[in-house]
């Protein structure tokens, strides 16, 4: 027996064990057992196990007895206190000692330190409790790092990954997160301050992840033995939180920029709380705000106060929601329109305790709305009743709506007009201008335009109008339709044209009257001045011969004066009252008649007269004028014949555009029209060195032709001949 037990007593045995006999007395023990549990002075040998200063539960003793009786081995976990006061989880292995001689006569107890195991289990339990929470530990004494499976999952590391303290910290996102965790860990290790914070990790796979990290250090004698803690994946929660914060920030910005004031009124306590915007809305400063119901009431316009009070009352009673508009009067006297909405908050008993609401300024909105309503009304009224033509026109030129004014101007009924487009009734010459301006409006180069243009009336006549076109845009700024206004100025234009013609006529007549006056004055003066000169000579002349000559000259001057007066008379007669004597006369008969009257002269000159005047040609003329005209042109042809050839005069008539033309074509001297063109029909203009030329014939001819609404013009080449064209109305 002695030998059998003695082998257990060897001091170099690594495990701590103790051997008990059947009475549970200590027979033998290992040195480690002694060192672990006892001080050196303690006597263990021969002591009863239960007397040893080890806290062993009763259960444990039963196990020992059980082992003695049945020889069965068992395990027992207990927490023991070591001699240095540390507590330790241990596992006792209870083995029955068997020798060849005896059975169940002793027990071998082996103690195993299982505190690590227990710790692990504790950590694991903790990790399991909280979802997505992993744990870790850094043991500085044994220089070991432990990551729980969940920690590994959070870090997304492979199974064989071997972490270290440094690599653990390096998982935190570079920058402020990594700096923060380094600081926290250092602080914990040096000062024992635990941490609990939220940081971003970058996992092994590169994903960013919000984690909550908690940790603490175990410090003994100023030395950090280990640090340990947990990781929690809070990514989803954090995301939500951040999102909420963005929304909240956004709401704040929105209320600030839209200047929506927010207020809260605690009914029982009469506490009114305003945000900053509210003060702006009421035009008062935060310092002058007393914070009660009265503070709000004071700002309201006198005429709205009663109603507002009532409405607040209804909201508190729950009769109706507070949703209203009122005016506030600023201390400066300025009046603003406010829109207010509030919600009533009730307690469990259903009693209103709080009103929470908003205010915003609708002054501009209100005035704009008012203006819009007014302008809408006015437009509709104007559209209906305006004498000016008005229409709404689609972008492709179709009428959408037309008013009576437009229908009246254009002569169509509304139904007829709506079937047409703007272009259908536009006068072709004005199409390009209209279209190009409309294009400019369509392309936003201008908002509107005004154009004087012409339309076709239903009857086919022209309608002059001033068209104003304005583009109307929809709320998105897109072109919607045109408003066209058409002011009918046809009467004005026609009156203008008549007036213009009248002015032209008057101007012409004035001018010719003025010319006439000067011509008359000139001619009368030239004779009278001659006469005064001659009479002066006569008064002093004594020589009889000379006196005779002077007398002759005086007679000539007197005759000339009489001639001039007669000519002028003739001119004046042409000017006055010619038209009432107009009648339809045969042109040929007059030509023949005149030719006959100057037969002698024609014969004398051996002139060849070729008459090609149709019998059927009748003209509307004053007979005496027609005679005078034909005679003058005949005699002119004879007078201004060429010196080098015999006269050939062709008299021809033809019809052109409802008028009868008579052409007198000669082969005479011709007139230099470049030099004299403007003067040829002028009074007292002569162009040839002909003694008979008085410069009155063509002047009278022109006046006679024009007084019969006709016209005269000449074509001529020097030394080749002239052709006079007379245009007269058909008879």
């Amino acid at each position, binding site marked *: 027996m002695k030998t059998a037990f003695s082998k257990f007593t060897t001091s170099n045995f690594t495990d701590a064990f103790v051997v008990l006999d059947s009475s549970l007395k200590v027979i033998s023990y290992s040195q480690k057992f002694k060192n672990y549990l006892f001080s050196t002075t303690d006597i263990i040998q021969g002591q009863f196990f239960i007397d040893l200063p080890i806290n062993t539960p009763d259960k444990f003793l039963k196990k020992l007895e059980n082992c003695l009786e049945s020889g069965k081995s068992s395990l027992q976990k207990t927490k023991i206190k070591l001699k240095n006061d540390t507590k330790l989880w241990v596992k006792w292995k209870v083995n029955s000692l068997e020798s060849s001689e005896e059975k169940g006569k002793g027990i071998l107890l082996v103690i195993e330190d299982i505190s690590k195991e227990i710790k692990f289990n504790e950590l694991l339990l903790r990790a399991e409790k909280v979802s997505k929470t992993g744990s870790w530990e850094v043991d500085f004494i044994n220089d070991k790092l432990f990551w729980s499976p969940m920690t590994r999952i959070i870090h997304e590391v492979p199974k064989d990954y071997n972490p270290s303290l440094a690599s653990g910290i390096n998982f935190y996102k570079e920058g402020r997160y990594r700096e923060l965790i380094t600081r926290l860990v250092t602080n914990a290790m040096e000062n024992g301050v635990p941490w609990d914070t939220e940081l971003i990790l970058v996992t092994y796979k590169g994903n960013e992840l919000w984690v909550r990290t908690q940790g603490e250090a175990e410090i003994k004698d100023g030395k950090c033995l280990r640090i340990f803690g947990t990781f929690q994946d809070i990514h989803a929660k954090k995301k939500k939180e951040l999102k909420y914060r963005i929304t909240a920030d956004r709401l704040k910005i929105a209320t600030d920029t839209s200047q929506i004031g927010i207020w809260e009124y605690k009914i029982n306590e009469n506490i009114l709380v305003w945000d900053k915007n509210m003060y702006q809305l009421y035009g008062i400063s935060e310092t002058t705000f007393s914070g009660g119901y009265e503070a709000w009431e004071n700002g309201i316009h006198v005429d709205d106060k009663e109603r507002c009070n009532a409405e607040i009352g209804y909201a508190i009673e729950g009769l109706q929601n507070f949703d209203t508009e009122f005016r506030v009067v600023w201390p400066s006297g300025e009046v603003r329109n406010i829109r207010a909405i509030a919600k009533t908050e009730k307690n469990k008993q259903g009693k209103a305790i709080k009103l929470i609401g908003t205010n915003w300024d609708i002054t501009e909105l209100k005035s704009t709305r008012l203006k819009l309503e007014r302008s809408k009304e006015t437009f509709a009224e104007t559209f209906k009743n305006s004498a000016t033509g008005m229409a709404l026109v689609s972008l492709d030129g179709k009428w959408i709506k037309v008013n009576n004014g437009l229908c009246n101007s254009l002569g169509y009924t509304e139904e007829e007009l709506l079937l047409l487009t703007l272009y259908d009734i536009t006068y072709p010459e004005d199409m390009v201008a209209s279209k190009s301006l409309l294009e400019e409006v369509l392309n936003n180069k201008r908002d509107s335009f005004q154009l004087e243009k012409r339309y076709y009336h239903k009857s086919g006549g022209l309608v002059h109008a001033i068209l104003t076109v304005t583009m109307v845009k929809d709320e998105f700024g897109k072109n919607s339709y045109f408003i066209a206004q058409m002011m009918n100025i046809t009467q004005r234009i026609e009156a203008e044209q008549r007036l213009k013609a009248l002015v032209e006529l008057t101007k012409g007549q004035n001018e010719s009257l003025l010319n006439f006056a*000067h011509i008359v*004055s*000139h*001619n009368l*003066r*030239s004779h009278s*001045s*001659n006469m*005064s*000169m*001659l009479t002066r*000579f006569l008064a002093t002349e004594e020589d009889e011969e000379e006196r005779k000559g002077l007398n002759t*000259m005086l007679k*000539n*001057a007197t005759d000339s004066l009489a001639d001039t007066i007669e000519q002028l008379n003739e001119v004046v007669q042409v000017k006055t009252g010619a038209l009432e004597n107009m009648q339809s006369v045969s042109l040929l008969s007059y030509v023949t008649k005149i030719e006959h009257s100057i037969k002698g002269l024609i014969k004398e000159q051996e002139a060849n007269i070729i008459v090609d005047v149709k019998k059927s040609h009748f003209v509307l003329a004053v007979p005496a004028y027609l005679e005078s005209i034909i005679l003058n042109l005949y005699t002119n042809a004879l007078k201004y014949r060429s010196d080098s050839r015999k006269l050939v005069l062709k008299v021809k008539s033809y019809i052109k555009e409802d008028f009868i033309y008579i052409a007198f074509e000669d082969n005479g001297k011709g007139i230099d029209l470049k*030099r004299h063109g403007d003067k040829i029909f002028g009074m*007292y*203009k*002569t*162009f*040839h*060195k002909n003694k008979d*030329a008085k*410069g009155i014939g063509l002047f009278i001819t022109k006046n006679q032709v024009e007084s019969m609404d006709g016209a005269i013009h000449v074509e001529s080449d020097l030394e080749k001949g002239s052709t006079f064209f007379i245009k007269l109305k058909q008879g």
Partner: protein
Amino acid sequence: MRKVKNCCIIDDDPIFIYGTKRIMKEIEFSEKLTIYNNGEDALNGLKESFKLTKYLPEIIFLDLNMPIMNGWEFLDQFSEFPDHNNAKTIIYIISSSVDPRDLERVKNYKLVNNYILKPITPNDLEFVLNITAV
């Protein structure tokens, strides 16, 4: 009193010419007098005599209303007369016209010294002579 050496009348009215000649004789106006009946004749005649003598009349009395070439046309063409020392020639318009447009138009011609309204009197000619003599 000094006489004008060379004088010229351009007018188509024989009575006026007669009268003017007669007054000129009375007051001994000029040594030599040339008469033309219209602008064209005058232009041609003056050109011809300039070719021969290199002289132009010191004074021209010019009528406005004449056949063939009137006074205005003459003025226009005489201004472009080649090679002549026209600073020495003084033109007087003599006309029956009291039309202000004519009086205004005369101002456009530097050649024209004055506008004399018909009938011409001995005083008019003496005045012209005095100016020219000085």
